[in-house]
């Protein structure tokens, strides 16, 4: 606890410093006028200032706001020590930025109690300041990391341009990172596969599973594997990777090269709708399986 005592009167300074010593505050500095006080404050960064009002050069009313400015965002308690007793002068102490006042001759017990009270607030303010600094640091770090991950995700999970003439799609996630996934891939026989899915939960944690799913899906599409094999492999991968309370609801669809045959494996997604040319719903494909990443291989059903 570093205390700066500002008073043009030698004796007053001596009394104050002596009183502080008795209270256990030994880290004290003295200034005989406002100018010296400001110079000193810059150098020593006090935790509390005892400030006389009437001084040559800069008086207490002028020094207080300047000291506050020096202290920046951290609360610097300023207690005025004044011989004036009229209401106006005392009120002014607080108006110019002071935090408290004690009238001369000062009462040791009251002054000591006030110093302790303001010291508590100062400590609190310091803590908050530190925490704010840390918070800003973490926020920046997280933002930077999110940018990197976002970059990887957009590259890994974007829909290949060559499909866009066949597809109209709309992904409307609630946050940057999410467990929503739409991936498309060509089959070696001239048809195509696509997968629509949604991981449990929100945010980055739910998005992370999208990468292995997408990799597996692309690889299996290139080999022209059946939906059954795809569902089984992805289930196996996710069972191994995901915690027990996380899963991946998904529908995997294969359209053959004529565009007339469609196979669907739906696990835990709402019904897929097939629209006729007129826009009428011709068929609904309801979920017939549990989502991926829940069932062990022997319980898992691949029926399409």
């Amino acid at each position, binding site marked *: 606890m570093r205390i700066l005592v500002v008073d043009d009167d030698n004796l007053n300074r001596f009394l104050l410093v002596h009183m502080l010593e008795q209270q256990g505050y030994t880290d004290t500095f003295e200034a005989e006028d406002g100018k010296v006080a400001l110079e000193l404050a810059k150098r020593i960064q006090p935790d509390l200032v005892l400030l006389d009002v009437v001084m040559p050069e800069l008086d207490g009313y002028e020094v207080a706001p300047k000291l506050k400015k020096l202290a920046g965002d951290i609360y610097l308690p300023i207690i005025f020590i004044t011989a004036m007793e009229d209401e106006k002068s005392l009120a002014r102490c607080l108006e110019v930025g002071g935090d408290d006042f004690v009238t001369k001759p000062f009462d040791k017990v009251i002054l000591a109690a006030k110093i302790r009270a303001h010291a508590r607030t100062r400590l609190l303010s310091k803590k908050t300041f530190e925490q704010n600094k840390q918070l800003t640091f973490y926020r920046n770090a997280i933002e930077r990391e999110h940018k990197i991950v976002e970059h990887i995700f957009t590259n890994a999970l974007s829909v290949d341009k060559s499909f866009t003439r066949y597809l109209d799609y709309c992904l409307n996630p609630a946050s940057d990172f999410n467990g929503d996934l739409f991936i498309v891939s060509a089959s070696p026989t001239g048809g195509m596969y696509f997968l629509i899915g949604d991981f449990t939960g929100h945010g980055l944690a739910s998005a992370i599973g999208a990468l292995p799913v997408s990799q597996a899906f692309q690889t299996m599409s290139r080999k022209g594997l059946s939906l059954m094999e795809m569902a089984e492999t992805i289930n196996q991968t996710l069972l191994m990777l995901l915690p027990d309370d996380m899963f991946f609801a998904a529908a995997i669809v294969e359209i053959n090269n004529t565009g007339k045959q469609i196979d669907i494996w739906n696990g*835990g997604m709402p019904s897929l709708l097939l629209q006729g040319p007129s826009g009428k719903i011709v068929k609904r494909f309801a979920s017939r399986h549990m989502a991926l990443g829940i069932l062990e291989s022997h319980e898992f059903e691949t029926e399409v």
Partner: protein
Amino acid sequence: MSLDREFADDGKELTIFLEEKFDFGKVQDFRMAYSEGCEGVTSIIINLQKTEYMDSSALGMLLNMHKSLSDSVTSFKITHCRPQVLKILQIARFSKKFNIV
């Protein structure tokens, strides 16, 4: 706030009552409800009478419970579902792991 629960059949049957919202906010309470003082429980009933909203993390929590208790508990029931909740459980095909009545 912890969830209401009820023991029956000499402590072998435990009923857990969920609230209006069954989502990630309940993760701690729900785990406590099926893990604290539940030695000897062989049958668990999840009562969803009050539940109007349920999200995927709730499904995850149910699966988690199923997995962690499947050695000692032989019957998992979900009861009193409202239509919108029942629909979620049907889409998720939870009847494979839970007896939905």
